[in-house]
């Protein structure tokens, strides 16, 4: 009897629609966030993450309609991230029905935003997303924080940054390896392990999942509290349930 490790499918949303092929059998509309969320819920997803990648600020509010619809029909926790710049953005997303809000680039520009948002709404709903990339060289392993979807280096040491975010009130860390994201060769285990061991708050491993063994490795070797994946679920290679059954077979506590 113990807390289960969480499996979290991640959905990219732009202008109110899910992008990247979600390929459920019998889906009426492969872009409808609510329908997709419900499918993942049916499969036993522990949480969902919506990443709003809308480029135009004109279309930003479309995410609010999605949140409202999902909140009315899917009764598992969900996180919304992307374009969160101010406490007022956090407020709008939470009021629409999001359980947690993820802050990434804006936390680097204005760390006080994390403290203010956590102070106002509680750490339980503030996720800080960290995009980390290995620093080249032969010295001890280090990672640097990147922003703007991995395009801009910040000069910040990722692990120090994670500790700072914890101190400022982050409730958990969504940790993405920029070296592994999109590669499907597995999580950066050393990165995940370094964060999990250093922090007191939960760490969600992200970036690089290509098969079910990778998910198990994130927990068993990386010691992650949760694992996030997109493409292996979107293209129906595996269902969330298959992933959980596989992990359970490896001795990992999951909700089945």
């Amino acid at each position, binding site marked *: 009897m*113990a807390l*289960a490790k*969480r499996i979290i499918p991640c959905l990219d949303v732009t202008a109110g629609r899910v992008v990247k092929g979600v390929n459920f059998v019998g889906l009426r509309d492969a872009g409808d966030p609510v329908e997709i969320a419900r499918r993942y819920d049916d499969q036993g997803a522990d949480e969902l993450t919506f990443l709003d990648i809308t480029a135009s600020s004109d279309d930003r509010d479309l995410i609010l309609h999605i949140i409202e619809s999902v909140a*009315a029909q899917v*009764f598992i*926790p969900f996180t919304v991230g992307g374009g969160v710049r101010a406490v007022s953005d956090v407020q709008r997303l939470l009021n629409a029905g999001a359980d947690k809000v993820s802050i990434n680039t804006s936390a680097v520009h204005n760390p006080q935003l994390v403290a203010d948002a956590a102070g106002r709404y509680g750490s339980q709903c503030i996720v800080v997303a960290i995009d980390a990339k290995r620093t080249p060289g032969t010295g001890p392993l280090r990672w640097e924080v990147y922003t703007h979807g991995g395009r801009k280096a910040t000069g910040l040491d990722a692990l120090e940054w994670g500790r700072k975010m914890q101190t400022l009130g982050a*409730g958990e860390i969504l940790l993405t390896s920029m070296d592994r994201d999109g590669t499907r060769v597995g999580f950066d285990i050393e990165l995940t392990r370094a964060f999990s061991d250093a922090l*007191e708050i939960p760490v969600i491993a992200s970036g690089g999942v290509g098969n079910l063994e990778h998910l198990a490795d994130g927990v068993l070797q990386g*010691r992650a509290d*949760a694992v996030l994946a997109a493409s292996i679920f979107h293209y129906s290679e595996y269902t969330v349930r298959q992933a959980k059954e596989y992990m359970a077979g490896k001795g990992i506590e999951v909700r089945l």
Partner: protein
Amino acid sequence: MSIIAVIDYGMGNLRSVSKAIEHVAPGVDVRVTDDPSVVRDADRVVFPGQGAMPDCMRELRGRGLYQAVMDAACDKPFLGICIGLQMLFERSEEGDTPGLGILPGRVRRFAHEMVGDNGQKLKVPHMGWNEVEQRIEHPLWDGIAQNTRFYFVHSYYPDPENADLTAGISRYPGAFVCAAARGNLFAVQFHPEKSAAAGLKLLANFATWSPVASGLRATA
């Protein structure tokens, strides 16, 4: 039409709670409200809460809801959720805050540096799906299997003075009370509104629950 009041004292997202109840009890009028008179007129009351307990207590008093909550907790079917459970107790270690004192006991923080069975560090907040062991038979547990997982997110937990308040426990890593019950009161540390089918079942049970009032009036 029966009315369920969801008490809104300005501490964030109540949509999840109200939508979940509407989903399982379509014939019920669910009102998210900060109006004490609506709370008084309701048939059932849900007392949610998130964030920090000192802020929750301050907002509750500041918005003039204190007495309405005290009264409802005496004589209406009353469901506390998360901080809404913690506030029912006498005092919390979070900011050393006095609670409503309806239930005897304290609210404590999980220890730092906790370690699980497998040697892994246990994180705080306790966040995710954990098993709930039902310690009593209760109408709100109807149709929910023993050791079903519910969704938790919290750093503090209740420590009731009397074991007879305990309706359910969970383990992290030691046992802690995650559901308390007395008369017309039922309160849970987990989030039924976010606990998929099991949570919806608990809310459906609450929507039809008709307990005998505890009769312990807090005021004349």
